[in-house]
């Protein structure tokens, strides 16, 4: 506080004797500057003047501020689909299983890991999709901080199974992410996904503010270029990622018809994304273009038939014991509508996504393999 005060007497001590000496030597020129003093002061004044003029010259802004300072947008989050399948029908396997007999649990469910392995084997093994060295990102649905029993989020068993299989297939790393509705830490913890990730060696990427960057969707047909325009998306989670796998539950959704794979990608958006509900089908169709997954797993083991997408009660769920693996997210969702007992037209975004070239709205065109796992 008193630092400057401490220096002041010293300055005075230096300056005052000089002045008095000069004053006494040149009595007539009292109050006038000496040449040296003048030059010193002129140099200092020039330095300040030059600094001012220089700053103005260097930082001169002739245009004034633009209307918006939005950064340049990336075009989507990337295409992670298998190159050899682009433009061709995707591949799909559907597994049904009996409920595992477990005396100790009132909520017996079939073994998702066995179902996943069976479906992948039918598609040539996970090695056909994940190569050694791949960096895999799992897009889970962790939207709500609720128990996995309520079926509103991706089941932790499925997360652990997929992460484990990816690592066995030689993946260099497996990460998972979502930008949920509730607070992210609570969501990953209460859904059991954080624990599943820790057990299987996957890393949870929490949607830190710094991970969001603006993206735009280039128009494709009459989809795109309209809603996701310079909109913040979870781009940071995709850094270095070479494969994307979506793990989605099958849920009722009053506004959109259903929430499955494509709606799961809503969790890649940031900002006040809820404004897009005004055109829910348009936004979900754009999400199909925002990112193209390598694989999609649709978990129909316990399907939320009512009160979606939050559920909240076991009575909202129905055991269907089905799991589908597909390279085509649109086809996966069209199969999900069948699980929900609804026509594909009840979720118009599925047809819109097909029109935009994101996949097939009729999963039977993929000639899916139907497998039965038994008990």
């Amino acid at each position: 506080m008193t630092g400057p005060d401490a220096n002041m007497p010293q300055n005075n001590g230096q300056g005052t004797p000089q002045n008095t000496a000069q004053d006494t030597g040149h009595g007539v020129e009292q109050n006038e500057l000496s040449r040296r003093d003048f030059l010193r002061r002129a140099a200092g004044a020039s330095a300040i003047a030059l600094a001012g003029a220089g700053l103005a010259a260097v930082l001169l802004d002739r245009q004034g501020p633009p209307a918006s300072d939005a950064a340049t947008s990336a075009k989507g989050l990337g295409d992670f689909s298998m190159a050899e399948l682009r433009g061709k029908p995707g591949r799909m396997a559907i597994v049904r299983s009996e409920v595992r007999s477990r005396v100790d649990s009132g909520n017996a469910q079939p073994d998702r890991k066995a179902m996943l392995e069976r479906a992948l084997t039918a598609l040539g093994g996970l090695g056909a999709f994940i190569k050694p060295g791949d960096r895999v990102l799992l897009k889970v649905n962790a939207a709500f901080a609720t128990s996995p029993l309520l079926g509103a989020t991706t089941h932790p068993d499925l997360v652990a199974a997929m992460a484990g299989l990816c690592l066995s297939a030689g993946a260099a790393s497996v990460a998972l992410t979502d930008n949920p509705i509730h607070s992210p830490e609570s969501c990953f913890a209460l859904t059991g996904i954080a624990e599943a990730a820790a057990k299987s060696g996957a890393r949870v990427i929490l949607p830190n503010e710094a991970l969001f960057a603006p993206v735009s969707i280039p128009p494709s047909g009459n989809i795109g270029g309209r809603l996701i325009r310079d909109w913040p998306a979870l781009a940071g989670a995709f850094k270095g990622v070479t494969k994307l796998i979506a793990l989605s539950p099958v849920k009722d959704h009053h506004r959109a018809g259903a929430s499955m794979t494509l709606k799961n990608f809503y969790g890649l958006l940031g900002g006040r994304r809820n404004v897009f509900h005004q055109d829910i089908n348009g936004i979900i169709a754009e999400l199909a273009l925002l990112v193209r997954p390598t694989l999609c797993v649709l978990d129909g083991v316990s399907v939320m038939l009512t009160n979606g997408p939050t559920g909240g009660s076991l009575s909202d769920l129905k055991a269907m014991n089905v799991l589908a693996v597909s390279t085509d997210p649109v086809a996966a969702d069209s199969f999900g509508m069948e699980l929900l007992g609804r026509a594909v037209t009840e979720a118009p975004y599925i047809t819109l996504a097909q029109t935009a070239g994101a996949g097939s709205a009729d999963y039977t065109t993929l000639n899916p393999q139907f497998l039965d796992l038994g008990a």
Partner: protein
Amino acid sequence: MNAENQAGPRADNTKGLRPLLRIVAARRISQAFFVALTLWLCAVTTLGASFWRLSGWQVNFILQLDPLTALGTMLATRTWYAPLVWAVPVIVLTAFLGRAFCGFACPLGALNQTFGWLARRVTSKLPGSRGAALRARLADNRHSPWQAAKYYLLAFLLAAACFGSLQTGLFDPLPLLFRSLNMTLAPVLDAGFQALFLKPRHYASAWLLFAVFAGILGLNFLRPRFFCRFVCPLGALFGLLNRFAPWRVGKKGDAAHGECGNCTLCDTYCEGGCRPSGVLVASECLLCMNCLDACPQGRMTFAGRPSAGGEEHLPEPSRRGFLFAAAAGALSAPLWTIGGLAGQDGGTGKNPLLIRPPGALDEARFLSRCIRCGQCMRVCPTNVIQPALGEAGLEGLWTPVLNYRLGSSGCQVQCIACGNVCPTAAIRPLTLDEKLGQGKFAAKGPVRLGTAFFDRSRCLPWAMERPCLVCQELCPVSPKAIHTRTTFEPIRFGQAQLTGAQGARLGLTGLPKPTVNLGSGDYFLRPAGLVPMNSPEAGLRRINAATWTGQGQTFTLDAEPQPGQGWRTAPGSVVEVLVRLQKPYLDAARCIGCGVCEHECPIAGLRGVRVSYENESRSGPGRMLV
């Protein structure tokens, strides 16, 4: 604290056994420990499983040591809440040893002492002014009759507490420090690291909270430990509790130590302004122990005998001032009630936005316990618990209130963190079963915080012909409290004439290009003027695609329009575009007031759905529904 700066010989200290640690050094280590513990406990009051998160840490430990909190809640509620029994050892310690808490433990006291030292350390660097600095320091640390002020404040606060209005937390240094750390320093410092929070935290009136905190630290430039000496009601309580302390600081009078030279070095470094060189004001001694360290003759002791210089207990004891302050405090509590803001008599006058966290007691009992420490606001994972500025009236300044416009979501249904960190149970520690109305609480139903109300002049489907329904999607109860009724309504400028029809494809003319995407699945076509008799959906055909060309418009419908449903496809027939709207309604009996709908409503300013306190569980007779 600066005894080591002075050059005088300390003859006595070198005699006999030299202690391992000088008492002043021990005090500094203890103070540093308690400051570090406070910071650590603040940092770990974050939900999470890792060891540096809320996982078994006694995050309220320092707050629970506070006898003023214990006494205040005891007077206001006539009970001693079990977690506050930690105050008992502090009371016992003070009764026998004096204000050891102030000198050795209080983290705000340590900060005050540090700031007072910083201010004077700089001053003493003035060249040639060492003598002046010492004189200034002596003047600063001289006992002042104004130190009685804190006793009057204590009397005011305790009298108010007797009548049910607990205001101690506003001035009590421990809640004050936690409040300041939780809501100003932690969020500001973490913004650069994001170690504690994923998103920047928001706290209403944070600037005012910080202004008070910074002001308290700044006052140390006027007098060292200004707050401790003149304001601190907890210090005043300690000053009363040490009335009969057998051990205290004092001057030795025996001739073996020679005459006291009245050098006043003990006064010069006295943190409490308790006049150790003369008639000691015992209640003001903070046990800083600087006098023991400063005395060149080693005459100052901490021992079981009165000071040779004489003793008095309180500064300027004025029974009249005491009674006056107590009377003012006793009057203040009923005066708050006159204001009617606390919702007495069935809730009239209460601010509709006064929504308390889940488990909060009814307003009167809540205000008899809340110490405004901000622990609930710190731990809330969604950051919706905010310090009240005006919502709860002046009496409820900085008490927790839910603001669903701030934060990352509403009140999370499966979260019970706030009640479980509340040190005084102003917010009761709920179990999940009790909050959700499960198990043995099934008959009672879930804890309700308020009720959502739709503003039909702002809600998109109600006011602007736009589908939306985010609120219904995120309503977390089952069955949802927000339900819908579907209507089909003609859009503005939505009429056109048919120019031709080929199956499901229609040619139209006269339809201006609308501002919405008619092919998005939400829009339908119907013969104009068709009055549906049996079903509101009669004659409706969903528009799958719509394109505009120079000549007119081409619509693709989901199926071929049927004459049996009222369609005429001859050129010139008039059709109209309708939007399918799912309009939200609220089933108040199912709404728990969690506010997710309000938080997520895309009408960012004044939301289209807003929660106010009506029907909250804690109100009892003030509930809305019967």
